[in-house]
């Protein structure tokens, strides 16, 4: 099933629990998120924000609960096909140039988006296109990793600390890109403890503290976002 931008998608997370090793990180996590909304997940280090994102990607097995993606007509879709994942690591090959890195992800994708040049312009790095990715600073690498989300189109962005290592100007720029994506009908889940600079109406924004679902607490009623 190919991602389709036209239809409204809803992500259902139902009673999710995550165990890493012998430790239960969180449980009874339920929420809904529909296209055109952004969900920010906060919480202290080690609470399981990254694990939650990896769980949604299908890299980890859920201890309990289920995750599904449905379209407006009720049809279910294969969630990983719709996800753009920006993890801690930027997935850049140091030996290849910035342009080659992005060009590969564009060709590798089944739903190509912007040309590498345009994506680099969007993250204001067009001048570095021909440099090897290995010489970039941490912040520049992060911006190139963000440009990867633009060279192929997928509706659900899972962002893990998207603005760590970024300066104030880049922080705003990334905020604009995220806002554009959400306002264009995409949806975003961001695990972050830095507030994002977004231009999105308040009713399309939600956030919760994953600490509220930490395993030691009693089960909570599900939150509904979007």
């Amino acid at each position, binding site marked *: 099933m190919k991602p389709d931008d036209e239809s409204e998608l809803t992500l259902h997370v139902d009673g999710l629990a995550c165990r890493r090793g012998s430790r239960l990180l969180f449980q009874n996590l339920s929420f809904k998120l529909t296209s055109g909304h952004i969900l920010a997940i906060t919480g202290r280090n080690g609470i399981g924000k990254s694990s939650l994102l990896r769980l949604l*990607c299908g*890299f980890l097995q859920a201890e309990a609960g289920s995750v599904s993606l449905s379209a407006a007509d009720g049809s279910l879709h294969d969630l990983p096909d719709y996800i*753009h*994942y920006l993890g801690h*690591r930027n*997935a850049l090959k140091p*030996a290849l140039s910035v342009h*080659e890195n992005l060009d590969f992800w564009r060709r590798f994708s*089944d739903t190509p988006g912007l040309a590498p040049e345009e994506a680099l312009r969007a993250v204001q790095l067009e001048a570095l296109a021909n440099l090897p990715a290995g010489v970039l600073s941490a912040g520049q690498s992060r911006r190139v990793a963000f440009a990867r989300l633009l060279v192929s189109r997928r509706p659900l962005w899972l962002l893990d600390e998207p603005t760590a290592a970024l300066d104030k100007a880049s922080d705003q720029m990334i905020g604009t890109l995220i806002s554009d994506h959400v306002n264009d009908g995409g949806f975003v889940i961001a695990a972050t403890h830095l507030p994002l600079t977004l231009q999105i109406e308040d009713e399309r924004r939600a956030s919760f503290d994953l600490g509220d679902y930490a395993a030691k607490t009693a089960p909570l009623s599900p939150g509904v976002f979007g």
Partner: protein
Amino acid sequence: MTGLSALFVNEMKLAVKSGGSAMTGVIFFLSLVTIVPFAIGPDLELLSRIGPAILWIGTLLATLLGLDRLFRNDVEDGTFDLHRLSGEPLELIVFVKGVAHFVTTALPLVVSAPLFGLFLNMDGDAILATALTLLIGSPALTFLGAIGAALTVGLSRGGLLLPILILPLTIPVLIFGVAASYAYTDPLLGFRTPVLLLGAMTLFSLVLSPIASAWALRLNSD
């Protein structure tokens, strides 16, 4: 399909650009072939007799040398996560990476083997036979090795463990590869049987290894 061909091109580009992956193996192979006469002594007849075996052992060891990098870089820099989300089956991704790895590391060994055969005083027929069996059998070495590379990808010192895991699996390939090389020049031995078995092992590993490697990578990557 276009995604997988893009992956193949990218893997080839990376192998060339990240420097010397092909050459490291060939130079290791060369040093191994060079030290053998020093160890054996100046017995040209003995040298030419054990030549095919030396070339096979050299190829086997040089193949193992580069395997550590096959999946490790991708897992460490996060590329592997994105491969998993690509919608392409992980088995096919592993297969494509394996083929690219074969072309960039094992094929140069096969190509340089005839030259190194001259160092070992092998005659034309023996060189031809060895090069031919290496060409048929070396994909099996790469693809069996890929299983080891996938299994050890989560271990920081996996580079040392990999040959220990994989060498026993490659022994049948070695046996039939060397047997076929000798059989080609010896009218008393049949060439057909060992070479067919060698080909069968290559085909078997081409199918089995992507499945096993993808399974090991999934286990290792959470």
